[in-house]
């Protein structure tokens, strides 16, 4: 112990500037697997859409609906499944590898509403569930509406966009 004490000397403190440190930290960041994420989201997002198409075909075939009529119950079915998976705590685990594949389809929207409602249930129905349900989905609705407004204007003025 005393020998070690003799060896000890004052260490200088790091004088790294914030900029230098940030570039150093950047080099230590593990790479985000963008290619793998793209492939996974393509496959899983595509699989969800294929499944949705299957549900549409089911309604068209069994209930003799047109494809337009079948689209509403299809969306409702996908939402129901997403809500059930969220409630059983499966959807978030699945999203970790599905990425945008599970976030972009309507199932992702359902998951954002359902997860917020579940999370804030302990704070009561009105202030908890009601007040927080659209915490995440709210911005989708706001900016979706704004985007629709401008697309609508472009459609009226220029005759482009719309459907």
């Amino acid at each position, binding site marked *: *112990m005393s020998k070690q004490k003799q060896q000890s000397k004052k260490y*200088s403190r790091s004088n790294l500037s914030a900029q230098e440190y940030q570039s150093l930290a950047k080099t230590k960041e593990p790479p985000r697997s963008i290619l793998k994420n793209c492939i996974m989201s393509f496959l899983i997002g595509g699989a969800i859409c294929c499944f949705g198409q299957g549900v549409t075909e089911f309604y068209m075939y069994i209930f003799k609906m047109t494809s337009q009529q079948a689209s509403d119950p299809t969306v409702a079915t996908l939402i129901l499944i997403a809500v059930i998976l969220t409630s059983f705590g499966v959807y978030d685990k699945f999203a970790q590898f599905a990425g945008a594949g599970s976030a972009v389809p309507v199932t992702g929207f359902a998951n*954002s509403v359902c997860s917020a409602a579940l999370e804030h249930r302990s704070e009561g129905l009105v202030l908890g569930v009601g007040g927080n349900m659209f915490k995440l989905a709210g911005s989708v609705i706001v900016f979706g509406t704004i985007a629709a407004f401008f697309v609508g204007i472009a459609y009226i003025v220029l005759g482009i966009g719309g459907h």
Partner: protein
Amino acid sequence: MLAGQQTWKFQRQPHIISTATIVGPDEALGPLKDSFDKCYDELEIYEKSWEKAERRLLSEATSLALSKKNLTADDLQIYVGGDLLNQIITNNFVARELKIPYLGVFGACSTSMEALAIVAQLVSTGAVKKGMAAASSHNCTAEKQFRYPTEYGAQKPPTAQYTITGAGAAVVALDGDGPAIEAATIGRVIDLGITDPFNMGAAMAPAAVDTIIAHLNDMNRTPKDYDLIVTGDLARVGHPIATDLLLKEQVPINTTHFDDCGLMIYNIDDQQVEAGGSGAACSAVVTYGHIMNELNKGHLRRVLVVATGALLSPISYQQGESIPCIAHAVALKGKGVE
């Protein structure tokens, strides 16, 4: 007694006479499973809300730390504790049950050692005879407050960390047979401009380095004087950065075992925890469980625990502010070590 600028070197060294650790199911799957007093098999901890779950963990850890030595709350004159929730609400409720004079502290994930340092100082000076330090965190309360609803499907980047579910408590007294607390180094707030709340390891690494260097200088020691220097929750991204920064400043950190509680607590490659563990309880349960056992068995002689904390709020990072970080160090000494 003050040593240097930042270190309290205890003339009368207090001892950690009893500890208790309670964790959730993910921690029970990790390599330190056997060092915990109790592992719950479900995240809800048999309660109706996440907040109650965390409260139960802390409440049980504090009572267990007392009952192990046949103590009651009346034997203690101070309880110092903290957690990650707004208004450190978990500790406020637990202190309501304990009815011990209470100081609530917030140091984010550095809370464990902040509380231990304060209790050690109070015991050492004789302001109190016995005191308890504790810290808790719960994965889901932290997710709810700092990130997204727990069931929300957001993909986490590989730099993100997984808040551990657990609580750790330690009873400190002047006389006793547990490991002694030699010194505590109080950290400074260091902020090198990292703004990403999903990369807290990198944000906190400079704070850990600052405190380690201050401690070694104040105590006139080298890393070799410790069998283990352990950081709180720098995890897979921050810990190698801290190692590099220390070596860059000519601190021979490679002459000791330099580890991180956030890396020790999980099987990082097999569990879905991204870069590793974090949370106020991370350093608490590893120190009061595994490290305490090793000190008591004589496998470790001297240990420096450097708990690291990212002092951000959900609002501060949304407003684009960088993350102020801190680290507090406590030097522990095994039985009979001179």
